[in-house]
């Protein structure tokens, strides 16, 4: 029961981007296409899961006043693994995500989960927490990317949707990202409020 709860909280109730408001930089920057968003989700979930496992294994041996530098080093090591692997096997993804792969290190979600969850809980439950949070993060990114890719480039997974339709280029750049996420948060607030009224 508790496993299900820990997994689901990352998806809705404590969704990192929509509710906690962290991990916003990659959410805004890489969501120009759905495939970029999915790759970002895979990379972040991998780093998050690995760092949560390692942190929960070594938590008893780290003196508490140096824990943050230790956590950051652990995270940076896994990010380097992702960086090298993507560069070797998926060079296209590596170029299109660009600077946002090294920047996974400073994604507050990962450090936040290490500090808040993995350093206080066992290995297995930390994995569940990491998967929930990673997928919740990726889900938001995918929805955001869906709107931005369809409206901003008239494409989905690289295929043209409506031939002859001139896309709104603004959606593909920074202003479109900000405004789309703002409207998504508004819609989410709206749904939450109407749910509360029903109860």
């Amino acid at each position: 029961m508790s496993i299900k709860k820990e997994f689901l909280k990352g998806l809705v109730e404590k969704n990192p981007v929509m509710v906690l408001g962290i991990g916003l930089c990659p959410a805004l920057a890489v969501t120009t296409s759905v495939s970029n968003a999915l790759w970002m989700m895979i990379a972040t979930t991998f780093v998050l899961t690995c760092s949560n496992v390692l942190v929960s294994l070594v938590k008893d041996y780290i003196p508490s006043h140096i824990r943050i530098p230790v956590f950051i080093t652990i995270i940076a090591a896994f990010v380097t693994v992702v960086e090298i692997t993507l560069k070797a096997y998926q060079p296209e993804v590596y170029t299109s995500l660009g600077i946002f792969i090294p920047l996974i290190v400073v994604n507050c979600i990962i450090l936040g989960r290490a500090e808040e969850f993995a350093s206080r809980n066992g290995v297995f439950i930390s994995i569940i927490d990491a998967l929930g949070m990673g997928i919740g993060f990726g889900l938001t990114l995918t929805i955001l990317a869906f709107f931005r890719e369809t409206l901003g480039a008239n494409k989905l997974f690289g295929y043209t949707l409506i031939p002859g339709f001139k896309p709104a280029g603004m959606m593909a750049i920074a202003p479109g990202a900000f405004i789309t996420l703002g409207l998504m948060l508004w819609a989410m607030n709206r749904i939450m409020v109407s749910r509360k009224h029903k109860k």
Partner: protein
Amino acid sequence: MEIKLFITILFSTIFINNYVLSQTLGICPFLGVSKKTDSAAGMGFAVIFVMTLASVITYFIYKYILIPFSITYLRTIAFILVIASIVQLVEMAINKLSPSLYRALGIFLPLITTNCAVLGVAVLNVDSGFITKEFGLLMTIVQGFGAGVGFLLALMLMSGIRERLETADIPFNLRGMPISFIIAGLLSLAFLGFAGMSF
């Protein structure tokens, strides 16, 4: 001749490629600390200082340690540790030298470690190939300083608008984060106008 190049780099990092509004880096502190103008200014100046210092130190580390030993793939780990220690050192130094400045900036300094714009500027300095160029160090300093000024500018603009929003009559569901994102989108749209400027 060089002067013109430096001015171009400075203007482009402040206005055209503003780190916050056109590259969506450093969004978490941008939305987190922009509620009041005083704290926005404090955060902005702290970021200018750390970014300039981090650019210089990562330049030397990359050029004289990572390249000679051909371990450039470790740059993510090296840079994030350097930034974390700079932040820690700056915090201690300011605390000793000027307690009044520490009281003004103190609470923002730990937050800067996870500001992705700082790591972003360090990685972008390397990616833009300043290392091998003549006057590379100066270009790095100018880019780091400009990125910080751009961050301060975006933060000040945003906090000015948000102070007025406090008293505005906003639909209930849009209050808080959603309206902030939409405002940020409009600001970013305005900054697009600078993209037409050329030197």
